[in-house]
């Protein structure tokens, strides 16, 4: 693939998907859970600080079999969105998820996660309570969880806050869901220095479900009704239910040890790496007479022993953050 700015058509298509994924009438996690599962019992709290309404979770039955369901929860109107913090969890949300996953592990229940968040909340309170640690610990727990996990991106898969409940043995996405390392607005303001370039950033990051499938980040796409999930939540939930049953059928057949090996291999294999045999650099001590004499006699200006700072020296500090999120 040659690098070129995304075509206008790619930009338009990517942005259309982003807007569908964010559509105010799009069915939210609880809309789907109530249609898919029988007898979902919502459990609350992280047993440490508080209950975070931006993440919901608890046991439920799927065709009579218990599963642990965990998902981000956005609101449906202004009031509920304020209550749910627009689906952006604080650390205690991720710690609630961890607690529920431990319970699932203890009882041998498969875990189903539904991802729909613009991202983990970046406010001062979240930082104070260890947002980064909460996400990291959640991810780590999922990489080694002893029960099968199916993760489905049902709306916005926003960065670390999504991945924190998004490690799975199978990862699926609804057709109009998106998944990205940073919001297109965030990417545009850093790399283009212009937030209004968000559509271009969305296309460049290749964040649509189809792109994610092609990149090998997800395993399958669940079709949505014509025009998007918001037109027919029932049909969307039916398709999701079928996909979940199929995926759970596959992952629960695998022996736990093989499951963990496969999950590890999947994660280890992600990314594109070029590998060449090269001679590692090292500080050059050419050992010449003048160097040795210089050191021995401590002649001013004589080279010191070679140092790594000569191989990789420091330079000016004026580095922008031109890549990190």
């Amino acid at each position, binding site marked *: 693939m*040659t*690098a070129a*700015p*995304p075509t206008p058509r790619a930009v338009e298509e990517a942005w259309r998907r982003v807007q569908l994924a964010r559509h105010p009438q799009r069915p939210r996690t609880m809309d789907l859970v109530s249609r898919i599962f029988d007898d979902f019992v919502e459990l609350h709290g992280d047993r440490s600080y508080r209950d975070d309404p931006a993440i919901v979770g608890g046991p439920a039955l799927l065709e009579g079999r218990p599963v642990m369901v965990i998902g981000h929860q956005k609101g449906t109107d202004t009031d509920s969105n304020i209550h749910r913090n627009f689906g952006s969890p604080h650390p205690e949300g991720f710690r609630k998820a961890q607690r529920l996953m431990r319970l699932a592990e203890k009882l041998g229940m498969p875990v189903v996660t539904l991802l729909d968040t613009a991202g*983990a909340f*970046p*406010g*001062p309170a979240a*930082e104070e*309570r*260890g947002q*980064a640690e909460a*996400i*990291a610990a959640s*991810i*780590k727990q*999922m*990489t*080694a969880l*002893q029960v099968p996990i199916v993760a489905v991106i049902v709306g916005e898969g926003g960065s*670390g806050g999504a*991945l924190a409940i998004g490690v799975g043995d199978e990862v699926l996405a609804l057709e109009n869901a998106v998944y990205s*390392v940073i919001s297109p607005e965030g990417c545009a303001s850093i790399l*283009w220095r212009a937030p209004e370039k968000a559509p271009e950033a969305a296309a460049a*990051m*290749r*964040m649509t479900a189809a792109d994610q499938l092609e990149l090998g*980040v997800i395993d399958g796409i669940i079709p949505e009704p014509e025009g998007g999930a918001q037109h027919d939540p029932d049909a969307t939930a039916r398709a999701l239910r079928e996909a979940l049953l199929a995926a759970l059928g596959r992952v629960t057949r695998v022996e736990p040890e093989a499951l963990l090996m496969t999950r*590890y291999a999947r*994660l*280890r294999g*992600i*990314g*594109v*790496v*070029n*590998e*060449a*045999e090269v*001679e*590692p*650099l090292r500080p050059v001590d050419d050992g010449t007479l003048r160097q040795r*004499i210089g050191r021995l006699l401590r002649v001013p*200006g004589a080279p010191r022993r070679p*140092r*790594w*700072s*000569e191989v*990789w*020296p*420091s*330079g000016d*500090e004026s*580095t*922008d*953050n*031109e*890549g*990190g*999120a």
Partner: protein
Amino acid sequence: MRIKFPLGRRDGPTDAWTKCPGCESQIFNKQLERNLRVCPTCGHHFRMSVGERIDLLVDRDSFEERDAGLTSGDPLGFHDQQAYADRLEASHIKTGLREAAVWGTARIEEHPVAIGLFDFRFMGGSMGSVVGEKVARCFEAAIGERIPAIIVSASGGARMQEGTLSLLQLAKTTAPLARMDVAGVPFISVLTDPTTGGVLASFASLGDVIVAEPGALIGFAGARVASGTVGEELPEGFQRSEFLLEHGFVDLVVPRAELRRTLGRLLRALPVAAAAGGAWPPTEERAWGPIGVLSDFAERLGGAVSETIGIDVQAEEENGGGPTPPASREAARPPRGGKAP
């Protein structure tokens, strides 16, 4: 014939001055280098290159780089105002590095370690596929060779130019840590200015011990984002090392001049769990270890080890002088005699 010596290690820039962002004083560059790039007036810690870090931290001539030939591809064909490939090339020319992180084996005060180091000047120290691969290999080597792992982070986060492939590096670098828990291999995370975003939201926050340099910016979101999002005034020292220490997310804030010695003390106090027949042989009544790990074992062994969970407050063994750092108080010695997988 006259023997000619070069004037200094570097020409030109060494004669220049640098303005300290902490106290605004002008520092002669040579003086800054001699002082480990710490402002002699206010103690501001300037960023360091990977090379300077290696000189600072590891025993002389002990660093052996591994996987030097790993380079990034361009999986998305990413192009903003600049092509990703061009940004990589520019960073390579600027730093001499092939990627934003380097890893290898080394010794610190005689202790062998697997060590990875970030350079913020290479695309903001951002983590894409290659950086993630190096970190993961560093951890896997630590497990394979049963030596502690150390990562010195300096990163803006996950690399946007590789999209979700970068995001998934959070999981790729974190997965080996769960294996290190089972294997009884310690991981020391060293946070330097700045460590933010996806690097902090993965392995960097999960050190068995987390050490930070003074005044380093450490946070999930940029401070501007944090205040802009909620329009709140930020608390004093927000997202600085000392703030994280106070809130319980960092074990030690250590000035640069003491960093190597501190790592040496930690490595001495927190060795790799003894394999069978180690220094502290296990008995049925006395076994130490994280209960989570033991319960894993218990499950696999059908509960056979569940009764070996115990807590023993034993006098600290030889400490090599000096007070015990807080982190080594409960130095776990899980003598997994014969039970390690």
